[in-house]
């Protein structure tokens, strides 16, 4: 009998190309995703060395970070963004890499289109010059962000040099209450372990609450693994995974599909497999979560109060909290419910998928956004946009007074002109509340789509569980 192995160990072992004493493992990469921001210098490196792209057919590009979200027929006003986007087109053309750029029906945030196209599959290794590559772990793929030097390595060799990370079991037992969703699970985890808690580890999310999630909710959780410091986050593939993938453009077909599913069924961690670390969360005890500070670990249940620096024993943490509250202009002990907001951002690779938009629309239907609040709804991909329009969700958003925009990263990273003004407060379904993340001087509260939409109506941070009919609102689809 072989030793019981975790899901992570199975994928890792399956991709070891070479191991030399003293050197990191040469690890094979099945899928390399590329976008405009972290790839230009890698292509320059290839040219300088006279190298080609080893496996263009395992590489795919899209434009997401710098793209404007105003109508596609309007010009790109930012000359640097336009140059960067044109550079991506040129690089992909020269090196033979397929690209879903602006104007393509498959354009979108790189972590939205990978699963949508069926490129993301269980058991694969997936990398991208983007920390939220952890998203793809929802399919039981080992997926992690890399730097631009590594992008160049993968382009040239389809391999990476990696030290084997440790494993970290995140067990989420019980069932979520109505109005509480995947975003609240991951924000609660990060609040418990801190933004460096998972450093050097790969999470595997397990337990009843995880199994009950849709694929899109699982993606929300794996997406933010990096915010807990982990390199990657995994969820074992199951029938929900296969159902999501079947029939997608790049998913295996016919006999290959049957073969693939039987292979994928062997991936889940074996009984008796052990993890280097473990934590358990009770999903049934979770409330909607919201962040109050300047990193994703500074989160609290929505009915709680902003913590006091005086209660922090560690002087470093006390200073960090003081600074965060000063930046956010919040008072220790104040309730987070009722906190004024100026902007609501619904979108990003964390919560910009069709089921996220359905949740937000279910709250905004037949209601109006509060006076003076700007609500931006930014679909995660062009396909998500088309689907939302087919279902009439776009009309719901517009009728409520929200902006319905083109697909991209938008105000999650605020590189494309979509940004907060200094001092503004946003409630955002994105993944980072760092100082200035959504615009210099802007202040971000991270929350779920339900919480963001409920807050849009009230104009202040609001508990989605108080909405009439919330019991009937559940994540739908994403198959």
């Amino acid at each position: 009998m072989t030793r019981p192995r975790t899901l992570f160990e199975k994928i890792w072992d399956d991709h070891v190309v070479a191991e030399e004493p003293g050197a990191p493992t040469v690890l094979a990469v099945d899928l390399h995703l590329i976008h405009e921001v972290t790839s230009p210098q890698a292509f320059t490196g290839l040219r300088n060395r006279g190298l080609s792209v080893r496996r263009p057919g395992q590489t795919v590009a899209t434009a997401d970070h710098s793209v404007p979200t105003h109508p596609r027929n309007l010009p790109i006003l930012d000359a640097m963004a336009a140059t960067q986007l044109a550079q991506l087109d040129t690089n992909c053309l020269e090196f033979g890499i397929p690209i879903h750029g602006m104007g393509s029906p498959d354009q979108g945030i790189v972590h939205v289109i990978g699963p949508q196209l069926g490129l993301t599959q269980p058991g694969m290794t997936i990398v991208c010059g983007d920390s939220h590559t952890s998203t793809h772990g929802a399919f039981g793929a080992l997926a992690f962000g890399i730097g631009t030097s590594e992008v160049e390595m993968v382009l040239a060799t389809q391999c990476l040099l990696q030290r084997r990370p440790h494993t970290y079991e995140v067990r989420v037992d019980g069932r979520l209450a109505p109005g509480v969703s995947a975003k609240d699970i991951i924000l609660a985890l990060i609040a418990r372990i801190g933004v460096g808690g998972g450093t050097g580890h790969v999470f595997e999310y397990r337990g009843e609450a995880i199994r009950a999630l849709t694929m899109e909710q699982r993606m929300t959780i794996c997406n933010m693994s990096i915010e807990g410091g982990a390199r990657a986050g995994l969820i074992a593939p199951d029938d929900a995974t296969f159902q999501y993938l079947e029939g997608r453009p790049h998913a295996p077909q016919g006999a290959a599909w049957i073969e693939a599913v039987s292979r994928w069924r062997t991936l889940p961690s074996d009984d008796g497999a052990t993890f280097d670390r473990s934590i358990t969360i009770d999903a049934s005890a979770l409330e909607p979560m919201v962040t109050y500070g300047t990193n994703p670990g500074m989160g609290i249940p929505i009915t709680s109060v902003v913590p006091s620096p005086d209660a922090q024993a560690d002087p470093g943490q006390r200073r960090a909290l003081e600074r965060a509250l000063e930046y956010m202009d919040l008072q220790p002990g104040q309730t987070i419910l009722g906190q004024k907001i100026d902007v609501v951002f619904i979108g990003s690779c964390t919560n910009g998928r069709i089921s996220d938009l359905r949740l937000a629309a279910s709250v905004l239907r037949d209601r109006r956004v509060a006076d003076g609040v700007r609500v931006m709804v930014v679909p995660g991909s062009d396909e998500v946009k088309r689907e939302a329009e087919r279902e009439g969700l776009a009309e719901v958003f517009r009728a409520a007074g929200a902006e319905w925009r083109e697909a991209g990263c938008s105000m999650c990273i605020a590189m494309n002109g979509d940004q907060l003004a200094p001092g503004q407060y946003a409630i955002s379904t994105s993944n980072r509340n760092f100082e200035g993340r959504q615009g210099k001087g802007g202040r971000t509260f991270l929350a779920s789509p339900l919480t963001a939409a409920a807050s849009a109506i009230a104009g202040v941070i609001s508990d989605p569980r108080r909405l009439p009919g919330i019991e009937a609102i559940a994540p739908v689809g994403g198959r």
Partner: protein
Amino acid sequence: MADPFQTFTSRLIPLPAENVDTDQIIPARYLKTTAKAGLAEGLFRDWRFAEDGSLLQPPFVLDQPGMAGRQILLAGNNFGGGSSREHAPWALTSWGIRAILSTSFADIFRSNALKNGLLPIVVEPERHRQLFELAAANPDAQATVNLESQVVHLPGDEDLPFEVDPFAKVMLLAGTDELGYLLRREGEIGAWEAAHPARVDTTARATPS
């Protein structure tokens, strides 16, 4: 590719903030460049400069008297979290930083730093606290970073040993990069590929969307 990493001596730049993220090291609006050079302008931009480009008052530590030219950043716990942007080490090295001392580093930042001649040095919490005390009591204290022998030499003849990935150490000392190593594994890569058919083909759809 960086120059070979040589032993150097510098005063410390104390930055006690914890969890310094890559958005602070270099804000996203500086990522629209297609080059590696010139990123020092964006380093800690929003902690250094007001909207009109003037220095904030009081100045950020990098802009305080006597800090220019220093090469060792003494940072708070868990440095470099957040995005995968290699622009962070590019900006730090472009300003002149060659080593960072902290109790821990985010994984992607650490990996990126090592590929750019920037040495992340992990220090035990108690020693970390003492280093900040040293920097406060003696702002001109010199430290010598010796990668070859894996020690930071401190005033009072004190040696602070540190761990470093042996492979990264070889790469840093030689000023070479990992791509060269990977390119020399051509035989093994080809053999692996022959035994493992590609899982996807991004150039061909199985079905129309």
